[in-house]
């Protein structure tokens, strides 16, 4: 039997952009005038899509628009989307911090939200005192906390510091303690937003394990927001994707993550060039263009074709030292697959002029999937790179359109043979 613990119906949230000041008073008065006459709020009719980068006409935007979804008991629902897609606004509404402009949210049971490091920790109080305080903020009674304090302290791994004021804690320790309190509170619905990023690898693993326990054995529901697609894939059973305040897709987590990553990839063009004035870079070196293309130059990158990447750049300042260009190729799990670099060449690039470097990746080596490349320009005597652009370019390696190809997984696709 389906047991719906969380139901979101037609929820929208409107925000006003800009600064509050004397000018906003007239809108408030107008709204108030409409309300006393029993009319609808005039400003709820207008408003634009929440696209962060485009310039808008209206002062009102919809941070969330007509969101509908349901969560069953015991489900772990992942929420993914770019920065500003409305994830945090959604969680804020769910944790009752602010109310929606329209729509209705129904929840069964206690809700505990863990929105940021040490929600409600008081710096002057000790860890133990804060556990009680935080427990109470999340709706736990003092006796309940008392029975669980040992488990909480043990899980957090902060035994030694527990009687020291929290202001002396590292940020990782605060997250550990805060997570432990929320997880052991055993709420019917646990809301976790991006907090785990601060903890170390060991703790992240532990926390993900705990969330799985909570949902599988405890029959609790978890809502999890993260940009870490691996964590989403391991933890979540289902996933919703938000884009510009609208729910664009929902379904099994791994499918959604893949689709989300594919969609994100499409935003990076295969070819680009810039004027020197607008080119990315700094006053030492600027990148003025690049091109990614396959052996057949069909606009698609396929497994069974060579892959070419060309980068055009200009040294603004000359250097006495050898300068080199490298591309760090990461896959969608953010694993470094390979580095393409000019260091093996006899000469680097140090002259003050426009240079072009091309790399060729032979066919049947890169596996299917999305890749993004970080561009680095390094100088032989300098310790760090003189230019580093994360996710500078990206490409998707697709299955061959003419031959049958199976996606067998793996970071790398060696050109292996089967022994007779």
């Amino acid at each position, binding site marked *: 039997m389906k047991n719906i613990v969380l139901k979101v119906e037609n929820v929208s949230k409107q925000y006003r952009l800009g600064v509050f000041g004397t000018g906003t008073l007239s809108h408030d008065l107008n709204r108030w005038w409409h309300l006393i006459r029993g009319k609808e709020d005039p400003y709820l009719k207008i408003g634009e899509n929440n696209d962060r980068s485009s310039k808008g006409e209206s002062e009102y935007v919809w941070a969330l628009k007509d969101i509908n979804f349901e969560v069953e008991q015991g489900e772990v629902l992942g929420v993914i989307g770019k920065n500003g897609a409305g994830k945090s606004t959604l969680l804020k509404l769910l944790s009752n911090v602010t109310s929606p402009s329209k729509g209705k949210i129904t929840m069964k049971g206690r809700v505990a939200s863990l929105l940021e490091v040490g*929600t409600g920790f008081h710096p002057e109080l000790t860890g133990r005192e804060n556990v009680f305080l935080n427990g*109470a903020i999340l709706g736990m009674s003092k006796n309940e906390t008392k029975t669980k304090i040992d488990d909480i302290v043990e899980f957090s791994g902060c035994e030694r510091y527990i009687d020291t004021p929290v202001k002396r804690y590292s940020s990782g320790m605060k997250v550990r303690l805060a997570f432990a309190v929320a997880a052991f509170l055993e709420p019917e619905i646990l809301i976790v937003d991006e907090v785990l990023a601060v903890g170390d690898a060991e703790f992240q693993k532990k926390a993900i394990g705990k969330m799985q326990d909570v949902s599988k054995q405890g029959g609790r529901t978890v809502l999890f927001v993260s940009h870490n697609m691996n964590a989403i894939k391991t933890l979540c059973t289902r996933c919703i994707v938000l884009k510009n305040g609208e729910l664009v897709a929902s379904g099994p987590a791994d499918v959604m993550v893949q689709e989300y990553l594919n969609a994100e990839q499409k935003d990076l063009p295969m070819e680009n060039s810039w004027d020197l004035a607008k080119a990315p870079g700094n006053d030492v070196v600027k990148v003025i263009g690049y091109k990614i293309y396959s052996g057949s130059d069909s606009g698609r990158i396929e497994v069974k074709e060579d892959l070419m990447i060309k980068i055009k750049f200009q040294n603004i300042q000359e250097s006495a030292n050898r300068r080199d260009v490298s591309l760090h190729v990461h896959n969608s799990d953010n694993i470094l697959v390979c580095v393409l670099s000019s260091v093996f060449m006899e000469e680097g690039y140090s002259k003050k002029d426009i240079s072009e470097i091309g790399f060729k990746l032979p066919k049947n080596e890169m596996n299917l999937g999305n890749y993004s490349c970080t561009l680095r320009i390094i100088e032989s005597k300098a310790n760090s790179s003189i230019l580093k652009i994360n996710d500078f370019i990206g490409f998707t390696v697709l299955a061959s359109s003419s031959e049958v190809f199976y996606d067998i997984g793996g970071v790398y696709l060696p050109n292996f043979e089967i022994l007779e």
Partner: protein
Amino acid sequence: MSEIRETVITPKKGLFELNLKQLWQYRDLLFQFVTRDVITIYKQTILGPLWYLIQPLFTSVIFTLIFNNIAGIQTGIVNAFLFNLAGIVVWNYFADCINGTADTFKKNENIFGKVYFPRLIMPLSVILSNLVKLAIQIIIFLCFYIFFFFKGEAGQLGWEIIYFPIVVFIMGFMGLGLGMIISSLTTKYRDLIFLVTFGVQLLMYLSAVMYPITLAQEKLPSQLASFVTYNPIAIVIDSLRKMTFFNGANFSIMDLVFPVTITLIVFVSGLLMFNKTEKSFIDTI
């Protein structure tokens, strides 16, 4: 709290939808906040809670020097220092309550923005933790009272002192009510916040803290005199001194009906405004 409770979140909230049951469920939190406030204020200080005493004592000494010695206000058979101390202790409670609650939303923006609990817990915890401070100050007042009693400068205690809890109630709830009104009005437009500290300070001079009301009626221009006469805080402070020092002379319980009524009106309006604001203030603060 093991029963499954259902929460429904919808846009607007009616003016009179008070969730007192929920407030009761969170009573542990209220207690935690009070303890937190009391222990953290003077953490990392050497004198600790002694600071609770130093401030009213010094204020009282200064008032005695200026208002009684220089300006020559007469306090009758009662020692001027003791007379001022009584006024200052209860006035401080009122002032602390209003100052502590007037910026509730602004001060707790961080925690309110992250997690839900009945917002009313915050201002309530302020008036309760100030009550602890008041209790400590009353003890020091009693020490001085006994000292001056043996010197014969403490006047005469009236049985009417049993009404003292009403005095505390008025001071606390008046402060809370005004604080809630101000904090609700300042989430979007902050103009009023500039008035608070300064306004409270000015109000003190018109609240009979260091003089009896009768003196104000004699010496002040008539508008100001009637302001003092109808100022509920002034009435309460004056009544308190009548019961403590003057054997309840010229005091009747009916004097407190007017301040209690005003307090209730202010408190209820504050409560309703606060309740209305708490739902979406985080978007505008």
